């Protein structure tokens, strides 16, 4: 109950503290290297073009903040980067501004999945697994079936403490073809099958919450392999850490920019989206942070060294597009089942 109390008090305090328009343009994003790269590629050019000052804050997913802004009418963000699922949920509840794509040039240069009613898809993220190259010097794991093979590749495994991505990976390891994953997962038998596969490695599982944990654990040898975001692993690898990311059968999803409903700087935020959608800005971002662009022309502006670390081209030849719509429908029930499974 303490957290609720703190949350309430802080809402009250922030209500008193910030009158609506007397603040700078506020951007909420995922923090870390990710946000550093965005600052260079998007925030600074945007602020310069608009002649305004901006402040940044971090957002950790979920609808809690957006809902609080919607309920109190005190909108403290003008732009937020979130996962596609959350953006869709928030859109359905009227917590985000709808985007007039005609005013943004129709979004023809973008991937079709990036053109969303309340959000502009901006970043493609690879969710695969990584391993410590020193741990598997003789033979390296190649796909999810190796990840689930404790005999051949002994050692602890890290997975995100959530059903999404994990159930898909389990089915891939169990031999379900990529184009049938969500079909199988829509049936009770398919869900049972995924959990049965996860049961086979449960004794060695360790669950992460934050994207930085897999890197720390892999480097410290706490786990032998872990699911991870490609950007984190590749950044660590460039810093000389003995890590390798497995592209085969990874799951890629899209992070989006959205505008909270009632944001005082809505017009400027739309201008931001114009910049963020350009191939030039996205190429600049991807060069600094190894996540993929949603602008189909951005690849032409990048060096081959950059491209080989991104979830684009050859790397997504054998990859699964993450289904936001499946998880919007099924998250509640599967999360409940997951929590139960973890506790047992």
């Amino acid at each position: 109950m303490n957290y609720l109390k703190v949350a309430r008090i802080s809402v009250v305090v922030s209500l008193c503290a910030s009158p609506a328009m007397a603040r700078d343009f506020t951007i909420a994003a995922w923090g870390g290297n990710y946000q550093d790269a965005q600052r260079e590629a998007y925030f600074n050019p945007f602020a310069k073009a608009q002649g305004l000052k901006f402040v940044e804050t971090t957002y950790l997913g979920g609808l809690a903040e957006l809902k609080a802004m919607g309920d109190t009418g005190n909108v403290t963000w003008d732009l937020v980067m979130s996962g596609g699922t959350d953006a869709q949920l928030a859109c359905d509840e009227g917590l985000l501004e709808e985007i007039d794509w005609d005013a943004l040039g129709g979004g023809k240069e973008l991937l079709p999945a990036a053109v969303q009613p309340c959000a502009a898809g901006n970043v493609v993220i690879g969710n695969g697994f990584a391993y410590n190259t020193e741990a598997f010097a003789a033979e390296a794991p190649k796909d999810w079936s190796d990840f689930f093979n404790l005999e051949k590749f002994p050692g602890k495994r890290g997975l995100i403490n959530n059903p999404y991505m994990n159930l898909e990976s389990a089915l891939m390891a169990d031999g379900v073809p990529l184009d049938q994953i969500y079909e199988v997962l829509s049936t009770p038998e398919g869900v049972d099958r995924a959990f049965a596969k996860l049961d086979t490695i449960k004794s060695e599982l360790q669950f992460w919450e934050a994207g930085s944990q897999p890197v720390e654990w892999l480097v410290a040898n706490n786990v032998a392999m872990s699911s991870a975001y490609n950007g984190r692993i590749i950044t660590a690898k460039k810093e000389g850490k003995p890590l390798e990311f497995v592209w085969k059968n990874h799951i890629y999803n899209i992070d989006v920019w959205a505008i909270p409903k009632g944001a005082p700087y809505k017009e400027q935020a739309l201008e931001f989206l114009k910049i963020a959608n350009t191939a030039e800005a996205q190429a600049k971002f991807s060069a600094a942070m190894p996540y993929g662009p949603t602008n189909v022309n951005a690849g032409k502006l990048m060096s081959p060294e950059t491209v080989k670390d991104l979830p684009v081209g050859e790397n997504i030849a054998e990859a699964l597009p993450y289904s936001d719509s499946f998880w919007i429908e099924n998250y509640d029930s599967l999360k409940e089942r997951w929590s139960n499974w973890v506790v047992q």
Partner: protein
Amino acid sequence: MSNALRNPHGSRLAALILLSIPVALYILVFLTPLASVVSLSLDNSALGTGFATLRAATEDGDADRRAQALLTDLGAMEQKQLGETARMLNQEKTGFRSLILKTGKEADTIAPTMDGLVSFDKRWADQEYWGIIDRNIGQITWRHYQKATGLKVDANGDLTISKGDDIYLRVMGRTLLITLQVTILTLLIGYPLAYGVTNGTRRVSGTILAIVLLSFWTSVLVRTTAWVVLLQTNGLINTLLVGLKLTSEPVQLIFNRFGTLVAMTHVLLPFAILPMMNVMRTIPKSQSDASRSLGAGPIETFLRVYFPQSLRGVLVGGGTVFILALGFYVTPALTGGPNDQMLAYFIADFVNKTLNWGMASALSVMLLSTVVLLVAAARIGQWMMSNRKGIA
């Protein structure tokens, strides 16, 4: 001051006014959130107000009238309410979300009969959906408590718990177990330290006190993270163990119950030591000396003279640690594995990730009532003990 001297009643009034400020503050920052948590756990106005027409139509039970009422209600909802309704119903059954959103958006174009609804989406023929709506359109709801306890009313009207549904009860049990273990550990470690501070030489007591206070003033997050660094596979302790050839391979010290207990004990230690120290300070040293001079050995003196008098401090320290530990969240999240997470972890998850404030509130109320019950039980126990002493 001079005014108070001249008019004592005025000073009472002034005192009352002065007192009213902290009382009002107390009500505002403590009781109001508490009351709102309880009401959130029962509140169903989000669903209840939206389905007013349907609730009226349900009474005569005519299927077409119900279908028409449902369409009226959904059609009248704003996007925000429709989305919220869809999200809440989806917590009860997968797929409800899309059904509600789809039906709500097209409500004007659907023929207002049961056949019309079913031909729009055949899921409306499934009585399960209607049953869920019927159960959840009242102004208050017990469904969060049902989920929290896993209790269900079966077809015969009996209360049952099916296996696998009692997750939060099991987490509650685990929370109590970890809390109890941490309390015992802090007391076992804290008691000698508190004794050292009160009875040791100036130097010993000063050193111990400085260490205890230093860790007391350091952020919980920092101390927890420090334990992560110390206990991890390539951490200091494992390096030491391997270096001393005590183990051939690093031992798993963190992301399990061991790590959780170590970090929590350390974080909570000052809360046990400080009250014990205060009570021990009040025990006259001359009593121990008298006991020794009357022929009791050091152990007997401690057990019969010192320890019983220090027990009050142990109770206060232990009680403080116990109640603080029950609500722990950050430390187990960072140092524990999936089977070491306490109830607060699930509460935070419901608040932040799934926006299910009703469920978060129900779990909070469950945790709160456990504390209240335990405190009451302790009081009754104390009272019975003092009564028995009185008889003896």
